[in-house]
């Protein structure tokens, strides 16, 4: 099992450690609900060093990225970040990712930990036709996500660059905590605001200490991956292996907004998805909330009122900020419209739920 540079730090803080995506990671420190609420109200720090990073550079970089990702990379400019997908050429998704436009002809891709090897093989294979300069730097890079309404205020103390006024989904390469060339972005997976910070492994402990020292007056706390999952689910953000995987396209998963059918962009599965849009989706991702008591979980069956199979739960939790049980499901398209009554089969009982628009948490 792999570990991040912060393993001992987490253990000293009393974290409960588990294996996640092949890494030994903190699932919680004081408790998922308390940590979740802390991020919504103040500021918390997630070790997300397990995430993967690829660099894509040179004159062929844009052509490669336009072909292998669903979003329109030409819409980026230096300093802008974009959420995107790698369609898999077979009506599915290899992974979802962030594309950072660091500078002209200089991109950083941030991919899921569980998919680093698969993604790297995929990008390398596709690049044979393009010849961009690509590198997998995942093992050298650590990352902290500092999230919450006080996050930028706290982090501003560690840099002369203006970060507090940065627009959502933008990035700067800055001197941070005295360390040059740190990639700082106003991104995250919580819907609480804040930033994500990328740095070399050898600088990691110094960054951690500086972040916690700067955040002390804001009651900054370490947050585990348990709360990361409940926070992202309240926002309806997709998690690979749950809402999206190699059996669903972005347009079926509610990710039409990052799938750009524009003339100047040819990309993998473009025609496949145009065909789905014209002739009907195979399934659709929908959010739902429980009407009757119960907690939906991954892989629970979804039925109509007569008990007929209409879909499958992809995520479910009790949401600490919304104080109700919610989930996502892949449904037959005719049941995905919000306001549809559906039933979740929980321990052989049909428990009533209703499809709703996401996000569940509306701030």
């Amino acid at each position, binding site marked *: 099992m792999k570990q991040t540079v912060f393993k001992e730090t987490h253990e000293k803080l009393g974290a409960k450690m588990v294996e996640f995506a092949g890494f030994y990671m903190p699932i919680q420190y004081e408790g998922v*609900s308390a940590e979740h609420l802390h991020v919504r109200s103040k500021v918390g720090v997630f070790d997300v060093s397990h995430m993967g990073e690829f660099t894509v550079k040179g004159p062929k970089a844009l052509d490669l990225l336009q072909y292998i990702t669903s979003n329109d990379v030409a819409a980026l400019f230096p300093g802008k970040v974009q959420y995107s997908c790698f369609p898999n050429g077979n009506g599915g998704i290899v992974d979802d990712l962030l594309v950072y436009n660091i500078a002209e002809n200089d991109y950083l891709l941030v991919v899921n930990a569980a998919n680093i090897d698969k993604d790297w093989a995929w990008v390398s294979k596709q690049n044979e036709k393009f010849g961009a300069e690509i590198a997998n730097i995942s093992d050298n890079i650590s990352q902290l996500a500092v999230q919450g309404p006080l996050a930028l205020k706290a982090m501003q103390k560690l840099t002369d660059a203006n970060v507090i006024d940065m627009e959502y989904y933008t990035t700067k390469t800055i001197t941070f905590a005295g360390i040059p060339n740190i990639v700082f972005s106003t991104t995250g997976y919580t819907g609480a605001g804040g930033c994500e910070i990328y740095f070399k492994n050898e600088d990691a402990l110094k960054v951690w200490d500086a972040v916690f020292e700067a955040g002390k007056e804001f009651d900054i706390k370490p947050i585990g991956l*348990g709360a990361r999952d409940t926070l992202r689910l309240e926002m309806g953000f997709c998690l690979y292996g749950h809402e999206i995987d190699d059996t669903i396209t972005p347009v079926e998963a509610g990710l039409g907004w990052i799938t750009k059918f524009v003339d100047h962009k040819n990309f993998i599965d473009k025609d496949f998805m145009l065909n789905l849009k014209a002739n009907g989706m195979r399934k659709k991702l929908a959010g739902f909330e429980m009407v009757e008591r*119960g*907690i939906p979980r991954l892989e629970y069956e979804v039925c109509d009122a007569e008990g007929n199979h209409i879909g499958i739960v992809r995520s479910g939790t*009790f949401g600490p900020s919304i104080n109700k049980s919610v989930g996502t499901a892949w449904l037959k398209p005719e049941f995905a419209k919000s306001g549809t009554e559906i039933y979740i089969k*929980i321990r052989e009982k049909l428990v009533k739920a209703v499809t709703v628009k996401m996000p569940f948490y509306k701030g």
Partner: protein
Amino acid sequence: MNLPANLKYSNDHEWLKMDGDVAYVGITAFAANELGDIVFLDITTVGETLEANEVFGTVEAVKTVSDLMLPVGGEVLEFNEALNDNPGIINNDPYNEGWIVKIKVTNPAEADALMDAAAYQAFIG
């Protein structure tokens, strides 16, 4: 963790408090801590008579779900309705206010086979 000496413990991490031929059943602080924040108790067996180790309900935490097993056979008389409004009581006070069901014990001698506090302490290490 301080384990009450007047309780019996099962290797499924339930506790049993005998009171004549009725008993209270809950989960141990160790179990509650392992589960994390408890958000829902699904108890569907009130009025049923179950054997020892039969499932009498389910506990849902934020991240996990776990079956609840009766440590001894008996009739499920009552569910602690206070847990409907505030299931987190189990995390805060597992051995008192956090009791889950009250049962009429079929054979009180079955309780003798359960662990006492010292044995359970050794069991969880």
